[in-house]
């Protein structure tokens, strides 16, 4: 079996396009239009409440942490601030990039820009990378957001709980983007009209980091970096923990989110930090449903979905051994079982792997055969 090539410029991506696995039509559970319209309705109230709570808690915790600095008594406050900065920013970036968090567009955009900075993602690039992630979820060579490539590099995964790999990758690319715009891989999914924006955002982010480092030198203290930059490392653990569960150990190169995504029941604090993205199968099937309506969507379609994992720990107990098996045999994956009430999988999608042809997608603009 050939090795997977995750490069967006490599042969697996080209083969996915040739065979119609890229930009294919994905499975959706049936939801009556009236129910779906209700679920999709936008509202500012839940996101305003959560945003005030988020930024308020960050402000209070960082103020106390600075006040207690450099005593070890400041550590719990840094942990709270860092987790919200380095993890809650991931879910805010995500929901606001979909434009579903708030009803009012400028509120989505403002929180999106702030969250993109905190999570160290170029707001202009990542909007497009995430669109591709939704078009080609876990299609090898097409999806730029595959968190765990096979065979998994477990040491890197563990390091990333402290943001190490992400941050090491981020800064050289930030400088590249600031000087030259998107890199060659990014140019495969960011339209040319947006390349200038990628560069402008990179220059702004770079300037803020440069000012923070300069302030740290001037003060002779890492305190400014504890507030800006480093929380992306010491607070990354929660978003990495929840992010791995999204697709980890499940099938790739399939066009049914029930096969490649995971819904996990979580405690209320994790759900606040993660903004309900624990309903991940539901989110991928219906990205127009805002975070606050995902529990209702889950109830509406759960008869058609694999049983969710009942906790974060249970999710890891299932996923981690699968990663270990993939070390020896990278084609191994966890096959999801459906309840008897579900519409069946198209079994041929289980058989798809790199090097094997996928069922062809309909030609653009053609009416589907009924």
């Amino acid at each position, binding site marked *: 079996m050939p090795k997977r090539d995750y490069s967006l410029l490599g042969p697996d991506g080209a083969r996915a396009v040739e065979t119609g696995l890229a*930009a294919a039509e994905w499975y959706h559970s049936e939801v009556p239009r009236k129910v779906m319209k209700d679920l999709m309705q936008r509202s500012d109230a839940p996101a305003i409440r959560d945003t005030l709570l988020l930024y308020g808690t960050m402000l209070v915790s960082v103020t106390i942490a600075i006040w207690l600095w450099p005593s070890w008594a400041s550590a719990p406050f840094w942990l709270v601030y860092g987790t919200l900065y380095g993890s809650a920013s991931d879910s805010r970036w995500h929901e606001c990039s979909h434009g579903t968090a708030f009803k009012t567009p400028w509120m989505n955009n403002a929180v999106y820009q702030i969250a993109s900075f905190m999570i160290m993602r170029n707001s202009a690039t990542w909007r497009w990378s995430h669109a591709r992630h939704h078009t080609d979820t876990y299609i090898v060579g097409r999806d730029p957001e595959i968190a765990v490539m096979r065979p998994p590099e477990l040491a890197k995964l563990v390091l990333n709980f402290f943001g190490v790999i992400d941050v090491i990758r981020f800064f050289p690319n930030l400088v590249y983007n600031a000087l030259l715009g998107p890199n060659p891989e990014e140019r495969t999914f960011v339209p040319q009209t947006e390349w200038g924006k990628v560069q402008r955002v990179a220059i702004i982010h770079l300037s803020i980091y440069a000012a923070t480092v300069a302030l740290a030198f001037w003060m002779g203290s890492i305190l400014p970096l504890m507030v800006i930059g480093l929380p992306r490392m010491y607070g990354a653990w929660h978003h990495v923990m929840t992010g791995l569960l999204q697709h980890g150990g499940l099938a790739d190169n399939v066009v049914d989110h029930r096969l490649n995504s995971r819904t996990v029941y979580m405690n209320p604090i994790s759900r606040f930090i993660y903004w309900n993205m624990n309903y991940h199968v539901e989110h991928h099937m219906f*990205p127009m449903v805002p975070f606050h309506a995902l529990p209702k969507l889950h109830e509406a379609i759960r008869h058609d979905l694999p049983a969710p994992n009942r906790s974060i720990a249970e999710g890891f107990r299932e996923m981690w051994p699968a990663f270990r098996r993939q070390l020896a045999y990278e084609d191994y994956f966890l096959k999801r079982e459906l309840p008897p009430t579900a519409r069946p999988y198209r079994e041929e999608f289980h058989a798809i792997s790199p090097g094997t042809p996928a069922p062809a997608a309909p030609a653009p603009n053609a009416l589907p055969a009924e």
Partner: protein
Amino acid sequence: MTWTAACTTDDIDPEDLIRWDHAGQSFALYHSPEGAFYATAGHCTHENVHLCDGLVMGHLVECPKHNGQFDYRTGEAKRLPACEALRIYPVKVEAGQVWVDLP
């Protein structure tokens, strides 16, 4: 140009859309909150996804795949990742029947 009967006014709820397939092409028909009717190409200009499962909010239609938005009265793309305008078609209503003018 040919006026073609597409649906009745009752077929589309206010502030909603339906899919209409005709002569090998697919369209989206809209009923605005003030009671006017509009027609656009059925598929999003970003990728080949039909807008019929999308959400109508005022005069905007949001694509169900990546949440790109269009003004369905003018076809103008209003939110990324939609960049290119949707094709629009003239519509008239006569005796409860919605007619679309097809090229």
